[in-house]
């Protein structure tokens, strides 16, 4: 039982971006997808949640083909995405944003509420509870966006560039939060990042996406150590 993307092809009108991408995330696993700008990372997550239609290939969730389901139906089955740029509802409060996540949990909302643990570890979210989301800093917004996704009790969580636009210090916080989420929810996490070094450090396994196809995959630590990856993505000479 996993989230499996099989030979996915998709893109925009006359502009195919993914050309046969296969990715797999197992429960509880943190999988990173690294790649340069324009490699198709965002396209991949948008395809997985159904915001972009597959031209061929499939997306299966826990063995069920969800390729033709609308985005909101995939969300209801536990596939949550934290989009690039956070996409909080700007004129809703932090609490209301998170309430929308809770609403999406529906029947999956059993057992201990993982949000509580997150709030405890990162009290800033709780402090901002009644404030309009648009008034928060980037780092705070990312915290809220992650918390909102967790409130939906995801079985798989897709994170699109969570470090984008954040200071190194805040990025560190975000990665700590991601670790915590994995630990507390047991969700499989697909982390799409330009900050390859940190992503690979956190991940169990990883894929390298290049020009719309997977060029390398394997153990995250091994990839991080490989020369090719170091040269292309980690800035090593």
């Amino acid at each position, binding site marked *: 039982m996993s989230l499996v993307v099989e030979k996915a092809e998709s893109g925009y009108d006359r502009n195919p971006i993914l050309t046969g991408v296969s990715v797999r995330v197992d429960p509880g696993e943190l999988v990173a997808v690294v790649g340069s700008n324009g490699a198709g990372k965002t396209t991949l997550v948008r395809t997985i949640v159904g915001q972009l239609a597959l031209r061929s290939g499939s997306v299966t969730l826990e063995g069920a083909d969800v390729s033709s389901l609308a985005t909101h139906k995939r969300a209801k089955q536990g596939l949550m995405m934290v989009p690039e740029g956070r996409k909080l*509802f700007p004129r809703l409060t932090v609490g209301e944003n998170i309430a929308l996540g809770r609403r*999406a949990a529906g029947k999956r909302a059993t057992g201990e509420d993982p949000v509580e643990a997150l709030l405890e570890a990162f009290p800033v979210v709780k402090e901002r509870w009644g404030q309009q989301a648009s008034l928060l800093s980037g780092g705070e917004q990312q915290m809220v966006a992650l918390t909102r996704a967790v409130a939906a009790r995801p079985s798989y969580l897709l994170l699109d560039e969570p470090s984008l636009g954040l200071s190194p210090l805040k990025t560190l916080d975000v990665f700590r939060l991601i670790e915590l989420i994995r630990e507390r929810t047991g969700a499989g996490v697909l982390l799409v990042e330009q900050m390859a070094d940190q992503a690979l450090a956190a991940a169990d396994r990883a894929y390298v996406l290049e020009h719309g196809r997977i060029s390398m995959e394997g153990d995250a630590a091994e990839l991080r150590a490989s020369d090719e990856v170091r040269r292309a993505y980690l800035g090593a000479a």
Partner: protein
Amino acid sequence: MEPVIIGLVLGGMYALLAQSFVLTFVTTRTLNFAVGEFVAVGAFATLAVASWGWLPTVGKIAIGVLAAALLGALVYRFLVLPFTTQGEHDVRWLLSTVAVSFVLLNLMNNVEGPSPQRSETAKLDGAVDLLGVGVSKQQLLLAALALVISLGLIAVTQRTSIGLVMRAVSQDPDTTSLMGVSPRVVGMGSYAVAMGLAGLAGILYAANVGASPVMGEPLLVASIAVAIVGGLGSLWGPLVGGALYGVLSQVASYQWGAVWGETAGLLLVIAVLVWKPEGLLGRRAEVKL
């Protein structure tokens, strides 16, 4: 004093229809230009069951409202939604709702004929004295309902989970669907509520002017004006816009004659569009890239 009171009462009636524009706009960014015909649909549906003695008045009204609501949901699903698929600048829905207006008008003309038909449902005869001014009970009822319904809608959007979803959709429909909410269902729901309101206005207005296919048309200009003045993005907008538009047009009518009433109202619209295009209570639309 008289023009102010009459203006507030009339403005209330327009506010009810303006609310229907606002509702569809905040959730779907579309306006249903067939609202005038939905006014008539509500009136005719209630008229059709008016002779059912066993059904209490509330039931007859409910049937009219539900008929308009159901039709509204279907119109959104099949004639609005498919014409909004090409992004923010896709305004084909504008043409398709105008087409709906034509089709409904023709249908009703064929089935019911063009002449107004007497409607006794929820009819209040006579006038009441309001601060020394004679106000038609029927219009007062419409205005009071507009106020109650607007406040009710505001409470729903502020306090309930459905309202939260509505506010979320109005801010970012794509992200809302990431939260497991179907934009289509929200759209159909708000069209249903909005057209149900139009139908309700029609049922109550028909008691005054009779049910006819064209009964809603004359209200349309004023209602759109009210919605624009108040701001299409705010549920408070119709109340503020209705009061302003109603009072201003009545004062002008009393002062200079009926021709100037509507003119003054439309001048107000132009002034608002120039000075604050998003409406008095509206929010400047965020441009998404």
